[in-house]
């Protein structure tokens, strides 16, 4: 075996986010030690996602059919839409198992300085979906709690206002498991703004 093919694999793996030369080298030698059928299944899965994955016609989540599993599920609550920036954000929210409504993926966030204008995102599609759907009562804006996400949320709130639909923003503040001591003033201010009354659960 020549070093060329090992080097090729290392270089290919280094193209993935968070993988440097050392990790790529370790993964390459691990792959070489794996059974052939397992390696084939990994390679097959990689090819399959590239060939079959596409965006859902309604929400722009990643799917292999015209509609994603969430949009085609009749049990989902069609009166609320949770707006996220990327499909990866949707997966994280789904993992909480507390939200039963639908989603809309914008595929990015507004950024004036980078020239990311509203028409480069799936904002018009969201408005169209709300206008034609007729069932939507609430839009939950779950864009990232950073400047781009906040700008996008502000813009969405502006364009949704004329439609008379309740628009909410996910809470911002301290992460669970963290210490207040290490949080910055903006985060603490947001946590104080979003405080809620303690209820007696006993």
């Amino acid at each position, binding site marked *: 075996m020549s070093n060329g093919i090992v080097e090729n694999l290392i270089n290919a793996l280094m193209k993935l*986010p*968070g993988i440097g030369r050392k990790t790529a080298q370790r993964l390459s030698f691990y792959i070489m030690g794996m059974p052939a059928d397992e390696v084939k299944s990994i390679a097959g899965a990689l090819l399959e996602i590239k060939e079959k994955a596409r965006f859902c016609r309604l929400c722009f989540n990643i799917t292999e059919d015209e509609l994603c599993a969430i949009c085609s599920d009749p049990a989902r609550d069609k009166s609320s839409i949770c707006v996220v920036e990327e499909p990866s954000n949707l997966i994280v929210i789904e993992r909480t198992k507390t939200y039963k409504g639908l989603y809309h993926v914008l595929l990015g966030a507004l950024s*004036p*300085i*980078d*020239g990311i*204008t*509203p*028409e480069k995102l799936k904002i018009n599609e969201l408005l169209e979906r709300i206008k034609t759907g007729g069932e939507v009562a609430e839009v939950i804006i779950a864009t990232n709690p*950073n*400047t781009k996400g*906040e*700008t996008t949320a*502000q*813009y969405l709130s*502006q364009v949704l206002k004329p439609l008379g639909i309740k628009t909410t923003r996910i809470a911002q503040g301290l*992460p669970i*498991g*963290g210490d207040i001591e*290490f*949080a*910055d*003033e*903006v*985060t603490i*201010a947001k946590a104080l703004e979003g405080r809620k009354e303690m209820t007696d659960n006993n």
Partner: protein
Amino acid sequence: MRNKRDERTTLNAKNEMLTRTEGLVLRTQQYGEADLIVTYLTLSKGIIKAFAKSPRKTKSRFGSSMEPLTYARISLWGKEQSMPRITQSDIINSFCSLRESFKDFTYASKLIEILISITPEGIPNKKLFSFLLGVLNFAEIQITKNSKLRTKNWDLRNKNKDTMYLIFQVRLLVMLGYAPRLKGCGKCGVKSPDFYPHIGTALCGRCAVPSVKGRELPLRLTDSTINFYSHSIEWPINISTRLKPHHETVSRLSSVMDEHLTYLLGKKLMTSEFLAKI
């Protein structure tokens, strides 16, 4: 008075330096999974780019200190010729209210885009730093004042913002030395309503020789546009921002400035295109 220890540089045997300074976050670019490349306007080094490890992670010690417009006390570590790494960042003023106002943030982004496009990196300019800090402070005070106003007339509030940020833009270009000359012909000083963006000045009929005339059509300036422009430069900022020019005057001066910047930079400003589309 500023503490001298806030702006210091320590050099070790490997030629690596620890620099402590104050900086305004101009823009951030995502790098890799959770890292950022932050562009600062610093007090001691002018515009610099610095690398921050994992500030996008929820539990990052940097918190929100790397969000655009934040004024922070920062520590940088690295060799002089390479991109330094941010080791510490403490917020002095977050200018959070500016980021939470869509219109204000978009206009502030335009100022920043102009500043980044024109100013070379690594050249300290304390006057520019104070100017930008002053602008952000002023805009923040206006937001607080506006929030206390009883009027729900958003058109009026936004119109005042258009004027205020246009004045900031004019003053920024004056400070950077790239302001166009609108008051009188650039060659002989005679009053002229024709501004030639590719020359950067107004020219009278006699001085605009046929070759200049033929290249590009001039932009027509009205007396009120010229007066508003002059007042924006000459009057103190707290007085000039009280001006209430006709919206036609504001939009004409705004398009003159945009044309001038397009010629100067050889491209349209991203933020101008953004503002046109919202």
